[in-house]
């Protein structure tokens, strides 16, 4: 029993420590993004661009496939549910709001957590084990400025962009099914979308994407920076970063929706 309570205590302290580390890294990244140029230590745009290409362009194929599938799935499920009430022609409303406010940001966030968050944890973990982080420090190059700030900025740019792209693909996929199943033209479907969707709906998704981006980057970095135990440790950190990031995304999504959608 005592060991059990001690275990809970240790994990709580470790969690609070990691939370503190994440906050410190976020503040330090923001500091370097804005103050770096003034100190002749800018965050290199080349590094941001390279990361953005990897995070954004590299994820386009899988985001396209999954968004299309989710759009079609929502249309199928929506029509099936509304048919009970004879209201299947109102399915566009449910699809539009579900995609832009929930599924677009969430599915993109989960995909980026799986691709980029894990890659960030593995990269930083490997660099720690190989003393590359120490090498940067002794060269007078702050690892947070050189490694974390570009990744954070790239995620903050690319995740909302990917999320909006995902919205478009999912809505298109849903439209294809709706027009096929209900005999509605694609033109009429898109007219309905324009009527239903407001800027607020799109900004709701954007806000979530920005939050998810920060979570993915910080969780990846913290897990990478706390690696110990060689190759096995890197594998563990990578898995842990994906699990933590997806959990954080889902819980944050719920809280965000609870606070802003009631």
């Amino acid at each position: 029993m005592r060991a059990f309570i001690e275990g809970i205590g240790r994990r709580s302290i470790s969690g609070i420590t990691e939370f503190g580390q994440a906050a410190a890294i976020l503040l330090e990244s923001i500091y370097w993004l804005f103050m770096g140029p003034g100190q002749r230590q800018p965050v290199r745009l080349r590094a941001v661009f390279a990361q953005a290409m990897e995070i954004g362009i590299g994820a386009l194929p899988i985001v396209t496939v999954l968004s299309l599938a989710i759009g079609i799935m929502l249309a199928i499920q929506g029509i099936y549910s509304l048919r009970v009430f004879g209201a299947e022609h109102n399915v566009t409303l449910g699809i539009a709001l579900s995609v832009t406010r929930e599924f677009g940001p969430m599915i993109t966030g989960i995909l980026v957590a799986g691709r980029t968050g894990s890659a960030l944890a593995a990269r930083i973990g490997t660099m720690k084990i190989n003393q590359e982080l120490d090498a940067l420090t002794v060269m007078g190059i702050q690892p947070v400025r050189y490694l974390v700030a570009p990744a954070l900025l790239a995620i903050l740019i690319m995740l909302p962009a990917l999320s909006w792209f995902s919205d478009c693909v999912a809505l298109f996929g849903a439209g294809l099914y709706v027009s096929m199943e209900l005999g509605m033209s694609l033109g009429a479907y898109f007219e309905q979308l324009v009527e239903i969707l407001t800027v607020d709906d799109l900004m709701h998704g954007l806000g979530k994407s920005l939050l998810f981006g920060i979570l993915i980057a910080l969780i990846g970095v913290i897990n990478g920076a706390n690696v110990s135990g060689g190759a096995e440790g890197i594998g563990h950190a990578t898995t842990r970063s994906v699990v933590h990031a997806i959990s954080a995304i889902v819980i944050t999504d719920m809280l965000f929706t609870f606070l802003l959608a009631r």
Partner: protein
Amino acid sequence: MNSQADTAISVKDLVVYYGDRKILKEVSMDVREGEIMVIMGGSGSGKSTLLRHLLALEHPRSGAIHMLGHDITTASQTDMLEIRKKIGVAFQFGALLSSLSVGENVMLPLLEHTRLDRSTMEVMLRLKLEVVGLAGFEALMPAELSGGMTKRAALARAIIMDPQLLFLDEPSAGLDPVVAAALDDLILQLRDATGMTMVVVTHELDSAFKIADRITVLDKGEIVEAGNVEQVRGSTNPRVQNLLNRRTEEIVTDVDEYLERLTGLRID
């Protein structure tokens, strides 16, 4: 020679703990300008810990380290950045950034800390690669280098800013005797050509005796001997002799006593 003015590094009463374990016990030493100081010791002697503190990668429980006019244990971030621009470090396994080519690795400090134009940086890069015998290898990635080449590339990166102080962590460890001897020669040539102060951490006796002006021998976190090569070779301290003659410290003769110490249980 021993005046304060020509002391490049001064370590005073350095105490380091990891948890409850005392790793460095009131370590004090001086490194004079232009000399090669070798810090020698077996595994677990505390030499790597001492190096990490000399590089300000960790902070001690107490004590002071004066380097280039600053106490680095209390220096501000800005002061530390200026100090770091004047020191070079070659880590044991190179620590080259795996995502950059050899050329990009070596040029990295120039890119980050100077406003030189690209062509000047490339000239400096070629010059330093020539010095370490890696001319023409700038396009290779670190994964494509042998152990000896990795250490040479790390050395080129360490000297690209023409540092006043150069730290080398186990420069010849893991290399075959021929490559290790060539690297030792390179270190000596570099010191003779530039006059830079070097601190070399090693457990390789042949290498230490070849390159050292002075040697500090660490054992269990304490300095057990310090002096020039002859003084260390002639030391009567049994812990130094154990290290020099590659002897284990004690030979277990009583198996029961050994098991008791190991398990904490009384063996009858």
